[in-house]
């Protein structure tokens, strides 16, 4: 009812934006008190054929905003806004005495969801019912919003699958999501959101879980969809992706929009500090040794600071051995700047991998790989998902035995060999894992984890300080820490015995950009201070480029290309390297 009057008030639907949000506030808590607001004062419009992007760090309220548009904020939430209109009709429903809205009655929402607004949820891999064929999932939107017969629906589903680039749709239509790869699932999900031809598509982090090649394909799919006249509300924390897709961008932080405008302006000429900080945290294109993170300024929503008190002292003061210019300079620093270890003549090989092969059944995960990691340098290892990076790392760490080949550590044989012979030299090799939490015994406190690593309680505080953590954290358990803090503890543990080589397998992939920046800076500093060699594995080319002296590119278990970082990035030789580079969205810095 109120929806109808909304249409009348907004004039003819054609002129109206597909979505108009004016001064939106959403919260979880007592509505009357407006308690627990997680989104406040958000305003924007999405028009047909245009793309609006919401960016911001994790928890800034992007998903909540998206869900509010279709009335799915969830139990215990309240919504208030000056206007919230879908295709010109208000979806706010009855106004409560406290100014919040009750939302539309359920049947009216159901006429909007799927039909006028399609939503692609953040968790793409689990957003399709694993028990139902994707054909049914996609067809559901048709069943609900069109009078089509079952046969006609099937036809339409096939068309949709075709249009999202699903290979051999007739075969896939009967498969369940578990039988599809991540990229195909995302396509199916997009097809289901587009099924009833909604004017507006909302896509919440649609590429986060995908590797870069697949991500590139999905992004071009969105470009096609928008080209056909659909309005797109695109949510991401990846500025590079946004810069490719969006016409307009809203930067969110702690539930508020700090900056908004055309994408070129916002990313090209950021006004707000936070936007600048976000942009700076993106490692792609930032040369080695240049700090990515801004030292803890009071306004920064330091994720790590949630429970940390007092805040860790800023880096520059604690890096006496490093030239201060490197620590603060935001401008490109000469890439020749070398830490003391690197300066000490021709570095020796800390780790040598020679002809290592590993098979799992018929699949060759690692195929005749040879590598050399020099003391005090970083070797970046990149490659598509499943190319064998982790397997190689496990072999280097002596966790899996290779089928052929040898690994030498500090010039001595390391793998293959008996663990009991390796054990005395374990101190030379450390590891940092992507999932720090699960690499800690859940029963132990940070203190006892580090005590274990050190072989005594002395130096725990020292070690924590070294990774910019307050020694008070020693009493906590890892699961009581934030992601960034955990990764620091993990690094501290790896450093405890002063290793010569650190294997880092996707050490920052699970972290937010700003936290990622802090960790990368930390690693950089530690390498400079202690001359540790890093085998740095990541699928994020930007991160790898920022961190590495040399780059090795892996594909299907083989090293297809290896060379100095700059050479590999600027003059890629192997087609695989080129396609990886092409797929990676880049953000051009001003």
């Amino acid at each position, binding site marked *: 009812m109120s929806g109808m009057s909304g249409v009348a008030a907004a004039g003819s639907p054609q002129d109206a934006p597909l979505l108009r949000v004016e001064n939106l506030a959403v919260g979880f808590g007592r509505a009357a008190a407006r308690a627990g607001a997680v989104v406040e004062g958000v305003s924007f419009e999405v028009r047909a054929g245009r793309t609006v992007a919401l960016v911001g760090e994790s928890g800034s309220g992007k998903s909540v905003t998206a869900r509010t548009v279709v009335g799915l904020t969830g139990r215990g939430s309240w919504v208030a806004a000056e206007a919230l209109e879908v295709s010109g009709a208000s979806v706010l429903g009855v106004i409560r005495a406290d100014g919040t809205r009750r939302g539309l009655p359920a049947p009216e929402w159901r006429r909007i969801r799927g039909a006028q607004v399609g939503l692609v949820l953040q968790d793409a891999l689990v957003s399709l019912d694993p028990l139902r064929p994707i054909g049914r999932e996609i067809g559901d939107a048709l069943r609900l919003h069109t009078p089509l017969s079952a046969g006609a629906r099937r036809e339409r589903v096939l068309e949709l699958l075709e249009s999202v680039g699903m290979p051999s749709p007739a075969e896939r239509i009967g498969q369940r999501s578990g039988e599809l790869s991540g990229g195909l699932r995302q396509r199916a999900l997009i097809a289901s959101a587009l099924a009833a031809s909604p004017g507006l598509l909302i896509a919440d982090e649609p590429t986060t879980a995908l590797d870069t090649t697949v991500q590139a394909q999905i992004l071009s799919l969105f470009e096609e969809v928008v080209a056909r006249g659909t309005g797109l509300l695109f949510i991401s924390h990846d500025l590079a992706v946004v810069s490719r897709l969006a016409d307009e961008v809203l930067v969110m932080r702690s539930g508020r929009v700090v900056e908004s405008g055309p994408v070129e302006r916002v990313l090209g000429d950021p006004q707000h500090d936070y936007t600048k900080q976000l942009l700076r945290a993106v490692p792609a294109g930032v040369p080695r040794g240049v700090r990515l993170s801004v030292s803890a300024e009071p306004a920064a929503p330091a994720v790590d600071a949630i429970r940390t008190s007092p805040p860790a002292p800023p880096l520059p003061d604690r890096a006496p051995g490093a030239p201060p210019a490197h620590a603060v300079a935001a401008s490109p620093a000469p890439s020749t700047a070398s830490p003391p270890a690197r300066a000490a003549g021709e570095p020796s090989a800390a780790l040598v991998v020679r002809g290592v092969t590993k098979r799992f059944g018929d699949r060759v995960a690692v195929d005749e790989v040879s590598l050399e990691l020099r003391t005090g340098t970083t070797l970046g290892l990149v490659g598509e998902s499943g190319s064998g990076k982790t397997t190689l790392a496990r072999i280097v760490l002596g*966790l899996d035995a290779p089928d052929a080949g040898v690994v030498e550590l500090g010039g001595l044989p390391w793998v293959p060999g008996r663990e009991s012979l390796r054990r005395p030299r374990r101190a030379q090799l450390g590891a940092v*894992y992507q999932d720090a939490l699960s690499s800690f*015994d859940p029963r132990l406190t940070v203190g006892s984890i580090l005590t274990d690593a050190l072989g005594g309680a002395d130096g725990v505080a020292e070690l924590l300080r070294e990774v910019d953590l307050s020694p008070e954290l020693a009493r906590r358990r890892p699961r009581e820490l934030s992601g960034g803090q955990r990764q620091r503890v993990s690094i501290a*543990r790896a450093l405890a015995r002063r290793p010569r080589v650190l294997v880092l397998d996707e050490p920052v992939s699970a972290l937010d950009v700003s936290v990622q920046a802090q960790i990368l800076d930390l690693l950089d500093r530690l390498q400079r201070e202690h001359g540790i060699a890093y085998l740095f594995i990541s699928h994020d080319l930007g991160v790898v480029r920022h961190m590495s002296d040399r780059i090795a590119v892996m594909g299907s278990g083989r090293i297809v290309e290896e060379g100095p970082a700059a050479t590999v990035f600027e003059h890629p030789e192997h087609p695989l390297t080129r396609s990886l580079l092409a797929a990676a969205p880049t953000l051009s810095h001003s």
Partner: protein
Amino acid sequence: MLTRAPRRGARLLGPVQWVALAVVVLLLVAALAPSVLAPGDPFAIAPAEAFLSPRWGHPFGTDESGRDIYTRVVHGAAPSLVIGVAATAIGIGLALVLGLAAALLGRVVDFAVSRLLEVLFAFPGLLLALLVITVYGPGVVTSTIAVGLATAPGYARIIRAQARSVAGAPYVEAAVVLGRSRARILGRHILPNAVVPVFVLVTLGVGQAIVWAAALSYLGLGAEPPAAEWGAMLFAGKNYLATAWWMTFFPGLAIVLSAAATTVLGRLLQRREVR
């Protein structure tokens, strides 16, 4: 199903949990110091006061020999709990040996133990118990052992899975990378993490063990009269079902409440454990 993640947002202590905690506390008091709750003698007969319905002085009524049912129910907590705990201890003790052996002693042992467990699973609980009783004759000790044996395969399966997942956990690999010895990894990481969740299983299991032991008593294969054991009281009371419902109602209620309360408690511990 016994080791799953906690529900997000579920409150830890709702009214149900409080009631359960209260019941467990009452149970413990009844088991450890029954005279505090019921100073009388659970065996004292008074034929003249037989079959009194619940009333002042006999809140749960009296039985066929004029014994006070309230007193008997309170004093019955200890034997019932002892049977429940002992049976669970036997079951879990056995399961620990089997489960840990399977998980940690290599493939051959794992294969053998897994097959053995599969076979034991084919004997439903009470059947295994009845088999044991066929061999060793009825009685409290036999039925306790029987219930323990009957529950062991289930626990063993859980413990094996737990130990395996712990043994393959990233933090165990991290310990290897740190150069820890096998023994140290086993002692410091694997055993504690594999065994601690077992205490949750104990709490969850005690209630069911009480129920099964009571079932054996009820079939006349457990505690001997005039033991103030809940199952045995039910066995005696069932003959007076139509005339003296309180003889069966209250001991039955005691079983239900203690089994339910320990389950709730176990769930609570489980949640804390996985949190």
